Structure formats: C-alpha cells, structure tokens
C-alpha cells in the first residue's frame, strides 16, 4: 500500500507541509501566536517551558522543540526566541540541525527591537517559507515510510476490549508493511510490563521495559506521590475501569502482537522501518502525543472510551472509540467506531479498513481533530507526572 507525501531534503517523508513558527520559550509564545495568525499555512503552539529549567528538564523541552522542527510534516521552521532565555537561539538551532537540514530562519525579539519589529520579521520569513513550501509536489511512497504514534486517553473498558485491540491490529499491519509503530505511556504499562517484556526482541530491550516503569514509580515516590492518586482518573472509573493494572492491561493492546524492538527516551528521534518500538512518555495525552510527534511520527491514532478532542499542531490525529454510546454522542470528534469488535465484527477486516484510512489521511484526508482546529500540546517535565 502507498500514500502521497512530501519528500524532505533529509530523506524523510512528510504527510503534511506546514511551516512551523517555533517559540524557544514561554516568553516567545505569544509572539509566535501573533506571527502564525498572519500567515495561512503556518502553525505554532504555546511553549510553557524554555527557561528557568534544570539541565535534564531543559533537555526534554529541547528535544520536543528540535523534534517538532525536524518532523517531516514540517517544511521549515521560523524559530522565535526572546533572547535571554535558557533555550538560547543558537542552542535551539544546533539541536534542530543535529536532526535535519531543512530550512530555518531566526527572530530574536530583544535584538529585533520589540514585538512589532519581531512580528514583522517573523511574518515575512514565514510567508516566504509558505510560498516555497507550496511549490512542492507530492510523490508516491510505500507505507514503510510511516512512523505511527499510538495513544489512548479518556479510557474506559471498551478501550481495552475494542479500540486498542483495533489499533494493535493496525500496528501489526504497519509493522508488516515495513514501517514503525510507537507504543507510548509508561504509566499505563504499570501492571502489564511483564507482558511487554516477554515480547522484547533482545535482553537489553527486556530490561529497559522494566527500568522505565520502575524509574517512573520511583520518581513519583521521591516526591512523596503515588501514581495511583491520579490514575485511573475519575472518568476512567465512571466508565468502569477499577484499577491502574486494569487500565494498563487494556492500554498495551495498542502495541498489537509484534516483538518490541527498541525503547526510546522521551521525544528522541525514532528510526523509520523499525517495527514496534516503545517511547517512554507520561500518560498525559498532549505531552505523550507531543513526544511521539517530536520523535518523527507523521500520523497518530488515538483511542478514547470517554471521547476527547485532542489534536496536534503538526500531525493528523485519528480518533477511535470502542464505545458505541460515545461514538453516537461525540461523532463530531471521533473518526472511527471500533465498537463492532465487541459485537461480533471481523477484526481483520476492520484492521485493513483502518490501515486504508491511515493511508488516506497520510495522503491528505483531514481528520476530525484537524477540521476542528485542535492543536493543543504539552511538554513533559523531569519531575514525572501521571
């Protein structure tokens, strides 16, 4: 199976063709919003970090910033910094350059001479870049070029019975096509990590799976917190999920049945054509999706039993529910009804249909989160949260 995408100078393939106006820190975030509003085809997001961070925390932010700029759905990036923040312009540009050779322009607000001059520069750079991007022609590529991000949020028992099972079926098909599928959300491996570890391709991957789960639990214990305080959430419980273990056993279905070939740290660059891999992310949806997109995921599939609108500034997010009541109530937000998996539907056939939808979305079909304009994202902090 193939899709039509954009070839990038670094050899990777995008499924969207956006210009990213990248805020280096919180102090540049309103400026990037003002710039992106003026330029059709430009996107931005609110970066709440980028300054006053300890080194390991700043690294998480830097990896998301660099990863977003390097994501192949982005044609090029206008980096905007205030000038005095920890995420200095030269450091951000260096981090992006370590991942990609795509176009970069730079605006430093304090050097430009304030908001109006910085906005003027930023808008002109972004407009030029959008004009260049618009000249690109799509080409046909095999699905092996795809890195698929998988996420679940607002889970209920149907997530583990249907939606995540269907995503697992899709994940196995992406792996069979020669692509990469990312299983995320370390907090939601807790109580199910032994099942993933059994599927590790090497002893190193096996040990890493236990290590990331234990690291998470220990980090929370160090600050006197318990992962179970926030997980399952009130909505998970109202839906019928009783314990974190039950939630986790449902969550890991998103990884299908393939061997786990690698474990990546948060927001690090993921290799293409690698089969099933794990990324160490929190259960918090926007920061987990952000990490996979920073890792290079061009398309995200996202299950929700309760229903959630979450999107991404640069990657299409396909929403799937296994709850027929939620699908009926929130069809405006949800792309796929997986509830037939519970009521006698043919999982293989549905998996093939979902793979075809992924190929269509990769070729440009808008997802509901895109059509509604959802672009929220978050960046994980070194003091882990659930």
């Amino acid at each position: 199976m193939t899709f039509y995408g954009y070839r990038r100078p670094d050899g990777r393939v995008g499924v969207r063709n956006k210009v990213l106006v990248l805020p280096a820190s919180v102090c540049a975030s309103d400026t990037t919003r003002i710039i992106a509003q003026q330029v059709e085809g430009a996107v931005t997001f609110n970066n709440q970090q980028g300054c006053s961070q300890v080194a390991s925390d700043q690294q998480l932010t830097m990896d998301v910033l660099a990863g977003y700029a390097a994501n192949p759905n982005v044609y090029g990036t206008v980096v905007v910094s205030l000038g005095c923040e920890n995420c200095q312009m030269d450091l951000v540009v260096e981090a992006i350059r370590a991942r990609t050779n795509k176009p970069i322009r730079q605006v430093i607000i304090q050097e430009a001479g304030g908001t109006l001059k910085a906005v003027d520069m930023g808008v002109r750079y972004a407009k030029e870049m959008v004009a260049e991007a618009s000249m690109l022609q799509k080409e046909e590529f095999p699905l092996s070029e795809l890195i698929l991000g998988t996420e679940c949020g607002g889970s209920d028992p149907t997530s583990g019975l249907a939606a995540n099972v269907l995503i697992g079926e899709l994940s196995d098909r992406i792996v069979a096509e020669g692509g990469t599928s990312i299983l995320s959300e370390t907090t939601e491996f807790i109580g199910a990590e032994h099942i993933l570890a059994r599927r590790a391709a090497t002893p190193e991957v096996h040990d890493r799976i236990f290590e990331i789960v234990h690291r998470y639990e220990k980090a929370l214990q160090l600050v006197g917190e318990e992962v179970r305080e926030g997980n399952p959430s009130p909505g998970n419980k109202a839906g019928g999920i009783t314990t974190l273990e039950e939630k986790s056993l449902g969550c890991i279905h998103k990884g299908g049945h393939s061997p786990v070939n690698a474990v990546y740290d948060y927001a690090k660059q993921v290799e293409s054509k690698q089969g099933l891999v794990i990324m160490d992310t929190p259960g918090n949806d926007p920061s987990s999706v952000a990490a996979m997109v920073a890792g290079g995921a061009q398309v995200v599939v996202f299950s929700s039993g309760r229903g959630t609108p979450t999107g991404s500034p640069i990657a299409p997010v396909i929403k799937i529910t296994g709850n027929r009541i939620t699908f009926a109530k929130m069809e405006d937000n949800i792309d796929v009804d997986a509830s037939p998996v519970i009521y006698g539907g043919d999982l293989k056939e549905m998996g093939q249909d979902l793979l075809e939808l992924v190929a269509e979305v990769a070729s440009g079909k808008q997802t509901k989160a895109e059509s509604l304009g959802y672009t929220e994202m978050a960046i994980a902090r070194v003091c882990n949260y659930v």
Partner: protein
Amino acid sequence: MRNAMIIDGKDNVAVAIEPITAGDSVTYACEGEEVSLTAQQDITIYHKLAIRDIAKGEPVVKYGEHIGIASSDIKAGEHVHVHNVEGHRENLEAKE
C-alpha cells in the same frame, strides 16, 4: 442473547456489553460454550460483574491477569468495581 463477555478463560469477572438489571440472566461465551448466571445487582454497560464467588483477599482476574485484590467477599453476579477491589502492585519481574 449474549450481554456480557470474558476476555480470557482464567478471568473471574465478565464485562457487561449491554445494560444489565438485577435479576437479569447474564450470558457470555467461554471457549465456544455459552455460560449463564443471574445478575445480583444492576450492572452499568462496560462495568464488571463476578462470574464466580471471589473471597476477600483473592485476586480479581481480567485479561487473564491480576487487576487487583478483592477488598471484601464478592458473590457471583455482583458488581465488581472500586468499592470491592483494591489495586495491588505485584513484582512482575519475579513473576515473569
């Protein structure tokens, strides 16, 4: 009509896939055979009910795995949720 399901033959809870009222017959498939019991309580759709008696302190099993420990005696047909199950962290590395 099937109005519940189990995921693994080892499970001691089933999931309601239709709204179930106390006194209803609950039917699910287990290894190709239909099994029925009587619901002792109303079960909200997608919530769990015990398919056999579970004594206080026994593991509650779904997906063929432990999802927690019964915090009180649970009778077959009763609702299984946060009021009678507690999460319990096991050493899964040792179990593996």
